[in-house]
């Protein structure tokens, strides 16, 4: 096992090669904000909240998909990064229709928590008010595209943990949206096993249990990691 030595926020760290900067930081008590990262599934670097500064690189690098390298000198919380993170969260709010007051995830929403964390009190960007649909054709669950931040957690848990691959991303840029099956109503997708992992994975109120009202969404996110550990290591512990 080869070990890399590096610095995160001035702290000397030695960690196994192949580890991501995000993991290395976490294991050494440095919290880096994330939205698209989910323990138990692969990382995609979609949300850009975990961007860090690495000495010698003129680009900001996403900690979740950047592997540690020998001699790296990483800063995770500079004024520049704070500014970018705040801007990123403001853009997420401006891009969708996020009405916390009536949302099923109000009080239990990672986007809401992130807004508080980065100190966002309003968006400096004009709200786009996109016209997006709600799909409640599934017997148990619904997806409200107004609240989707395209983190693709649902896509990854369904593919990598459940193995059903119900979800995908369609279109490009600002027109991107999450599709079920071949862009069918969710209720018509045979592949869906109604396991509810996407509900647990969703950071906002975009995917929810039908019948839930304001602030009623509950998640069991640790169950996802439990399933991965059970499958890969045959250890059924939580």
């Amino acid at each position, binding site marked *: 096992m080869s070990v890399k030595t590096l610095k995160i926020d001035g702290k000397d760290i030695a960690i196994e090669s192949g580890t991501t900067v995000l993991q290395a930081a976490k294991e050494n008590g440095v919290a880096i904000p994330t939205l698209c990262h989910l323990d138990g599934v692969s990382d995609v670097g979609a949300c850009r909240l975990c961007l860090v500064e690495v000495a010698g690189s003129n680009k900001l690098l996403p900690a979740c998909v950047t592997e540690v390298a020998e001699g790296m000198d990483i800063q995770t919380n500079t004024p520049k990064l704070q500014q970018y993170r705040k801007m990123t969260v403001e853009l997420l709010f401006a891009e969708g229709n996020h009405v916390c*007051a*009536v949302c099923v995830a109000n009080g239990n929403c990672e986007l809401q928590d992130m807004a508080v964390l980065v100190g966002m009190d309003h968006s400096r960007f004009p709200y786009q008010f996109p016209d997006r*649909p*709600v799909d*409640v*054709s599934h*017997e148990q669950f*619904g997806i409200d595209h107004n609240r989707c931040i395209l983190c693709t957690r649902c896509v990854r848990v369904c593919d990598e943990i459940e193995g059903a691959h119900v979800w995908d991303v369609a279109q490009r840029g600002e027109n991107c949206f999450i599709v079920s099956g071949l862009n069918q109503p969710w*209720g018509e997708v045979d592949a869906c096993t109604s396991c509810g992992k996407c509900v647990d994975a969703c950071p906002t109120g975009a995917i929810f249990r*039908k*019948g*839930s*009202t*304001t*602030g*009623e969404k509950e998640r069991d996110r640790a169950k996802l990691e439990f399933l991965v550990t059970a499958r890969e290591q045959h250890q059924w512990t939580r």
Partner: protein
Amino acid sequence: MTRTVVIDPVTRIEGHAKISIYLDDGGEVSDARFHVVEYRGFEKFCEGRPFTEMAGITARICGICPVSHLLAAAKTGDKILAVKIPPAADKLRRMMNLAQLTQSHALSFFHLSSPDFLLGWDSDPATRNVFGLIAANPDLARAGIRLRQFGQTVLEKLGGRKIHAAWTVPGGVRSPLSEEDRQWIVDRLPEAFDTLSLALGLFKGMLDDQLKAEIGIFGEFPTLYMGLVGPHGEWEHYDGKLRFTDSQGTIVADGLSEDDYHQFLGEAVEPWSYLKFPYYRPLGYPAGIYRVGPLARLNVCSHIDTEAANRELQELRDRAGGVPTSSFLYHYARLIEILACLEKIQELVDDPDVLSDRCRAHAGVNQLNAVGVSEAPRGTLFHHYQVDENGLLEKVNLIIATGQNNLAMNKTVAQIAKHYIHGSDIPEGLLNRVEAGIRCYDPCLSCSTHAAGQMPLHLELVAADGRLLDEVYR
């Protein structure tokens, strides 16, 4: 020379409005109008949302009576689920509405209207408000504020927060009352009864004395009244059937279901107000003028099934010599209703069901078209939803209490203006009386202008002899 006197904004009401008074060549009032100048749009932007969100969304129509839309939306949701909610949920929802009626009526009476009665119509407008009341009569002001606080706190204890508690849901409520909170209500009820007794005594004394004249001027005219009544014709605030009565107390229509509201209620529009003008359809517009709210509820019911409130109701009827028809008596009716609410809260806190956690029924979409009704502090409130097979809203119609009093409010304004205003010299105190005519109805304009779409414009040019000279539709 003709002249228009504009009161803008109308003060001590919930929302934004103005009043125009039209004077003729001789300086006499020829007409007066109550214009609602704010605009919302809820009926339109709720389309496409799941019906389960409606309680949360429509509650935001108003923070003044934050429970009315929650209840109406939840009751409409119950019908979409096609469930009968558990007895505990029914009683808990009732308790919430009773608490709301208490806090909202206390706000209307003590905070908004009593400065006129206690400080005088012609007193300095700078102090003719709740702060002036605190200075002049601190004990009464404190009691009134604490009565409202009692209602607000019951709302908080039931729903977790005072305003827009997401506690009332289709199928029931989320949680029962805790034993600790039940005890809090029990402990605070005696003080609330004392405040009511004080206010009723004070107000009845004034009606015999300095406020006697107002009864005949502030909206004294015959109309129909509409409200919910219970199975035995008793006073009702949450469920039951709709009843219309007239100014002689005759029942015009009874046992009406909210499901058929479009058969007996029409909604007219006028180009000079964002507030619609509902009317009793069989009599047409505007002859189908009717009133809703505290006085209407007391007029349509045969009795109140609690002892003290029923005694007060009989006294009100005795004083009026039959059916009380003056809108000024809405204030009196509010106090009687608070008393009824307190008595009913007292009954409910002794009922073990309010502590039961079997308070929510779960179901899917079983009915695509549903109408819910409840009595808001200001009158009967209708929610009508049409959903697709998955429960997404296709159409929303909301008929709000204040809208239903719109015709009567306009008539009241004109009656008061014609009585008090003669010639071009108009003291401020007279204009205050015109505003106070509106305050009788405690209108909530935030609620009542929730509609969307283009206001149909119909302009009429009418000669002094009533001939129609020209008209334009847009």
